[in-house]
């Protein structure tokens, strides 16, 4: 019952105010393309030094969770992920907005984010110490296979366009190799320029590949940006809730996946949402609807990426190992405050930890009304702003966002060049998602592979390293299943014949 006392601590007016303020600020920053959750947390860390540790953690957690959620606005309304975590939200969110269901999509994203956030926070509250061991069980071979599993999603994401999807992913993998290799320190593909020495930043690639083509198309076509609904009023909350209720299995599965992937240091929201999306698609009765504005796609991505917030805090607080990049900043902030993170934290400083966990839970719940209001406002502004205003504003944000990554103009240049390449590739039928997926997963795959090989080689057992570990084999099995699912389903004559043949045919056609 002692724990409930901490709930009261979290409910002080100051902490509630910080939670609301954090969520609002985070949502706004996350909604702006290019300003990521990591940046939101980094900018606001200095302001927390004057607070007591629990309040500081609450405000940082609220900003973090708000920013991950806010990323969905830009994804749905402008087809540009506001943060890397919302890449997969563009798949179905934008098509929904395009056909006039923008309000519904935003409301659904809010509902899903709150569900995911609550599930993640509950796991953090109830099961943090045992779950932290999950992070430790993941060694280099598991990361390698996880990345390979992620790459197999391309086959799922690019139905009807498999070859182009694979070419795009290869391009992304090549981009991932630019710069100084973490393992080995070799310098690759920099063309002797110092601009490329630091590698291609995922955020600047994201802004370039998604935003610039959208901007060019906005200018090049006379149509209005989004189709406006007949009647403007209402949040379509009832409709969203009933869709979410029907997709409850999907929402819970995605939230659990998001929590687990959040626990893995180095994975994070972008991978979690992609994995959840592909699982939702695989288990759906209508996989062919995914990518064309399927509400379940939004439920999967938005619940999983917000679940990574709670999940990421698990290794951060229990082991002192940051689960996601924003966690690394929060960990540093706690160190400055003189708090020893790690195994002793729960026993010695329980009041801080539990007050924070309840605070995060409360902030997540508060995200519901706050999100509905802000989302409505974001939607209204996007549809009422004339295109002549929208384009320069978004263009300005792309420059600001890519500059803000490292306070460096080099990233702006990379963003712009990739943007033009992305636009040309778009015209030729290549989607940006496989490229970004290759870029995100390439580094994880490469590091995992080389580390596994080095360790295996030292112990004279390279094959055992890759194929002799149970957890690895589970991931390999999942990857194989995802890759060949359409064929397997066909052979077994599973229930939904129509959609399966459609998928298989689409693939054979390529």
């Amino acid at each position, binding site marked *: 019952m002692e724990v409930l006392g901490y709930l009261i601590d979290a409910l002080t007016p100051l902490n509630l105010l910080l939670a609301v303020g954090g969520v609002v600020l985070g949502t706004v920053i996350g909604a702006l393309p290019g300003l990521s959750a990591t940046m939101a947390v980094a900018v606001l860390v200095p302001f927390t030094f004057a607070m007591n540790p629990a309040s500081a953690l609450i405000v940082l957690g609220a900003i973090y969770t708000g920013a991950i959620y806010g990323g969905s606005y830009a994804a749905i309304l402008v087809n540009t992920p506001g943060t890397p975590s919302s890449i997969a939200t563009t798949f179905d969110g934008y098509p929904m907005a395009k056909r006039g269901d923008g309000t519904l999509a935003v409301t659904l994203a809010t509902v899903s984010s709150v569900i995911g956030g609550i599930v993640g926070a509950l796991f953090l509250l109830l099961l943090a110490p045992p779950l932290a061991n999950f992070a430790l069980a993941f060694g280099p071979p598991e990361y390698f296979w996880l990345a390979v599993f992620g790459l197999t999603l391309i086959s799922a994401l690019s139905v009807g366009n498999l070859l182009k999807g694979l070419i795009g992913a290869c391009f992304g993998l090549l981009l991932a190799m630019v710069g100084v290799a973490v393992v080995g*320190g070799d310098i690759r593909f920099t063309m002797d320029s110092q601009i490329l020495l630091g590698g291609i930043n995922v955020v600047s690639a994201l802004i370039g590949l998604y935003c610039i083509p959208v901007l060019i198309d906005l200018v090049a076509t006379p149509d209005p940006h989004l189709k406006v609904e007949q009647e403007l009023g209402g949040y379509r909350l009832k409709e969203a809730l009933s869709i979410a209720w029907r997709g409850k299995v999907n929402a819970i599965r995605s939230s659990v996946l998001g929590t687990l992937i959040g626990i893995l240091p180095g994975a994070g929201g972008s991978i979690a949402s992609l994995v959840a999306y592909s699982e939702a698609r695989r288990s759906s009765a209508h996989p062919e609807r995914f990518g064309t504005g399927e509400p379940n796609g939004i439920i999967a991505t938005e619940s999983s990426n917000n679940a990574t917030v709670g999940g990421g805090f698990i290794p951060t607080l229990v082991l002192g190992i940051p689960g996601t990049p924003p966690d690394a900043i929060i960990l540093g902030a706690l160190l400055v405050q003189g708090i020893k993170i790690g195994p002793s934290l729960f026993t010695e400083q329980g009041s801080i930890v539990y007050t924070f966990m309840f605070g995060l839970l409360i902030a997540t719940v508060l995200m519901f009304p706050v999100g509905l209001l802000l989302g409505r406002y974001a939607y209204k502004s996007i549809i009422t702003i004339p295109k002549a205003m929208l384009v320069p504003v978004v263009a300005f944000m792309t420059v600001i966002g890519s500059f803000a990554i*490292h306070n460096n103009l080099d990233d702006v240049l990379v963003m712009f060049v990739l943007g033009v390449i992305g636009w040309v590739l778009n015209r030729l039928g290549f989607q940006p998602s496989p490229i970004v997926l290759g870029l995100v997963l390439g580094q994880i795959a490469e590091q995992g592979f080389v580390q596994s090989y080095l360790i295996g080689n030292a112990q004279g057992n390279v094959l055992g390293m890759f194929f002799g570990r149970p957890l690895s084999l589970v991931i390999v099995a999942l990857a194989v299943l995802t890759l060949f699912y359409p064929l397997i389903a066909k052979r077994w004559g599973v229930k939904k014949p129509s959609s399966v043949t459609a998928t298989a045919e689409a693939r054979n056609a390529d």
Partner: protein
Amino acid sequence: MLKTLAAAVLVATAAFAGPAMAEYPERPVNYIIAFNPGGESDVAARLQQPYWEKITGKPLVIQYQAGAGGAQAWSKLNSMEGDGYTIMGTNLPHTILQPLEKDVGYETDDLVHVNFFHYTPDAIFVPADSQFKTLQDLIDYAKKNPGMVTFSGSGSNSSNHLAQQRFDELAGVKTTYIPFSGTGPAMTAVLGKQVTAGFNYSTSAVNAGDKVRMLAVSSDERMSNFSDTPTFKELGFDLVGGAYRGIGVPKSTPEDIRKAISDIVTKINQDPKFIKQMEDAGFVLTDIPYSEMKAFMDERKAFYTDIAKKMGIAKR
């Protein structure tokens, strides 16, 4: 209010900078960190910040320009204005090894370091339940099984990597170094028993608590909060040092301002509360002021260049 503040500044600066530099700093100073927030460089800077403000009465504004392991910021340092209002965190061995290996846009001798104020010693970690109780256990095992002992560490050609190479040489063993993308993942590998041991920084021991055992540390003397851990030196291995962090300024910065900055940093280093905070976080304070910089850099350059040549890093 303003008046008292101004008076405080005057008194504070005059106390150590001498009459010539009584006015520095007159306004906020930008402190650029060449790495992402959350790392050791950031934490150390954040700890310095309030003391800088207490001593000078002017804010210290921390900014980040991460990229290419710090090279992106360091290559731009000399193009910034040398008026004392832009200072940058610099790191060893990074600023010596990077230009040795490739053209990173700056040369080691181009950078003006005014003070190195702390280092994080390299240390060998094993999981708490490991069979290796002492460093000798590990060495005995490594001698019987050449190459079998794997060390996780932060990055290739880093201080950790250099320490592992030097350890191999001094102990007469052959071990395998596995680079990870930072301190966090490298320690995760130790805790998860993916590797035999970790060659990491002492700061990691603070977070990992009693889940790991530190077998030896490359500080000069035993660290105050890890008094059970022997130093390499007392075990007979000449391995002292680690990743040094200091302050650099643009080349155009006048001599008196360089000295003033160095003096402020030294003064921060003497504050008992700061010393306690730094030691609790696993840092080892050192004080290499501007006046001793040349000798220190010459010694470090010779040391790192020698290892870099043996490791085949020095390609230029």
